[in-house]
């Protein structure tokens, strides 16, 4: 992977595609927390700017971007409600992208993973507000205000879509974007994954969402797909 060079840049360079000599493509975000690698990803310097390689096998959003997510709604200075922050792999990259004018509200109920998240990510980045709660209790979120531009949901629960819809109805501004990762195996093990995804997409459509794109995350993640939808409610 040595000798990476800049190939394409988005949103003022907060998120870029790099290529190596073999023309292999790598995603990267400009590191807001300089010098710190969050999950073992490589840090590289190009023209005095520091980037973190964004691993598609570790972060589903990176996988979706490499599989041609047509429009990435998360931009510089976006505010994002993130459900299922886990240890902060994806949150850290989103925090890189939205930058100091943006804000990420990161919900995670599991104390076990939240500790790592607080230590390695949330306490080191000024644009993250951690919310240690279950996304089902969205009305009681502490440290929350206003409406957001994007809701990102990756919580691997049987009722994941309903949880995401409820959160959107409460906090997503009209015309805002929902990105939801569907882990089909959490919803239904027996039914064909494609069908499960379609059912969840239907649910969204019935709740004032307009489906923009559905991406199957193979080969980066098995039995996962990602839906990008617009909230028209």
């Amino acid at each position: 992977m040595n000798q990476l060079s800049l190939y394409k840049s988005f949103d003022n360079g907060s998120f870029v595609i790099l290529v190596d000599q073999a023309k292999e493509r790598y995603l990267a975000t400009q590191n807001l927390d300089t010098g710190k690698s969050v999950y073992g990803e490589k840090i590289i310097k190009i023209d005095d700017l520091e980037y973190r390689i964004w691993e598609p096998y570790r972060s589903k959003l990176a996988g979706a971007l490499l599989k041609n997510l047509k429009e990435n709604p998360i931009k510089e200075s976006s505010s994002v409600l993130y459900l299922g922050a886990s240890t902060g792999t994806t949150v850290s990259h989103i925090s890189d992208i939205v930058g100091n004018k943006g804000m990420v509200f990161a919900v995670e109920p599991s104390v076990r993973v939240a500790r790592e998240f607080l230590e390695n990510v949330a306490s080191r980045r000024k644009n993250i507000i951690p919310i240690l709660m279950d996304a089902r209790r969205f009305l009681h979120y502490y440290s929350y205000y206003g409406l957001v531009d994007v809701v990102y949901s990756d919580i691997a629960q049987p009722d994941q879509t309903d949880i995401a819809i409820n959160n959107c109805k409460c906090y997503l501004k009209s015309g805002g974007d929902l990105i939801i990762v569907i882990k089909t195996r959490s919803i239904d093990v027996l039914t064909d994954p494609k069908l499960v995804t379609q059912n969840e997409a239907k649910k969204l459509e019935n709740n004032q969402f307009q489906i923009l794109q559905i991406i199957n995350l193979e080969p980066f993640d098995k039995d996962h797909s990602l839906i990008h939808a617009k909230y028209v409610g």
Partner: protein
Amino acid sequence: MPSRNNKVIILYLLSYLEFRFMTDNVYKFLILELGIAIVDEKNMIQSFKRFHDPVQSHLKIKNRDYEEISESLEVFKVKPELLQTNYPEIIDYLRNNTFHAEKISAVEERQSQIDKISFYTEMYDSDQQDHSGRGRDISDNLREFSLKWSSLKVKEASEQLDLHISQSINALDEIDKILNTVGTRMREWYGLHFPELDNLLQNIVTYANIVSKVGKREEITVEFLQSLEIPENKIEIIIMTAKRSKGGKLTEENLLILQSLANEVISLAQIRKTLEDHIDISMEEISPNLKELLTATVGARLIAKAGSLKRLASLSSSTIQILGAEKALFRTLKTGANPPKHGLLFQHPVIHSAPKWQRGKLARAISSKAAIAARVDLYSRNPESSNTLASKLNDRITEIQEKYKEPSEIQQRQQQQNFKRADRDSYTRNKGKQYGRDRDKDRDGDRDFKFKKNKFKKRFHKSNKK
């Protein structure tokens, strides 16, 4: 001087105003992260009491110290008809203070979540700060609160966890005892029917499976033994010995009872496994460094013995070294016998597999690192330190093992004497706990070599009597 008429009008006006105030004064009493807001029906802020230290204030309210709430309530000159709150726990308190109180509706709750930003903005306005960067200020404050509050929650959960760890490890020990008793009984009983199996099969769960699922020795099949993952050569021997067994007959009634004993062994072993996994995960959570250094079960025992991780972290390394050997220690103090070299730490695989003369030194090396690990786990949770601690300890262990390959002369002499009392103590105490994972590793999944030990003990006693 006002005329009588005027007076009447004023009175009328006043009562009208009061009436107005009485009918539609429904207020929302909102406990937010940075303060308490009182909002009227039209979502206009009537008062905002800012917390000086939000985390402290929230803790107070959580612990039912309602001082700040009562201060906020003083705003009301006239009691409102209804107070709605987003914090159900205080409803009783409000009612005791003659307020009509109820929980806010979901719709209003949503609205107040969204409106929070304006509450805060107003609060900051009244603080007379320059307007530029105010939004940033608010989110900085919110962020600070949420970080502190989350860390507190994490810490609370961990503190809870170490109490549970103590219970789990005690349960583990008790299950081992029962497993040992019931297992031995099962072997002895089934031994009347198939005595040779006792020596052939060490693993108590495998043994119990044969008793429970097959029963009589004639019905043991190769396929079944294969399903238990017994090695091929052993399977052959078992089948052969079953045919030639000198054991007696087994009646249906006896077999049925024996089988329920066997089922008990199997399910206890299952619980044991669950407990062990649980201890492993919990230790990773609350005390990863200690776990790395001592293994999950030994680390958990230290925590249980000390009472909590906090208490353990406050102990000196020399106390940790002999934690669990209190009896021997008191004997030392009373009679001047040799002090114990190790208590619970004896169960550390490195120590109990070491030659006797190295154990004291190893125990000291391990306990000094364990003391540091406990403190690191309690206060900083720095994941990197475990590597350095563990590698330093390993260096020291190799050093001891190299340097003290042979016992010193004094030690050699002592060795020829009988068991030291202190060591015998720790021997008997730990004997019941040898199901542990680490023993299994060296013994290749063989869980119950201790039955052999028991036999050894019996013989030992017999010969003593003679």
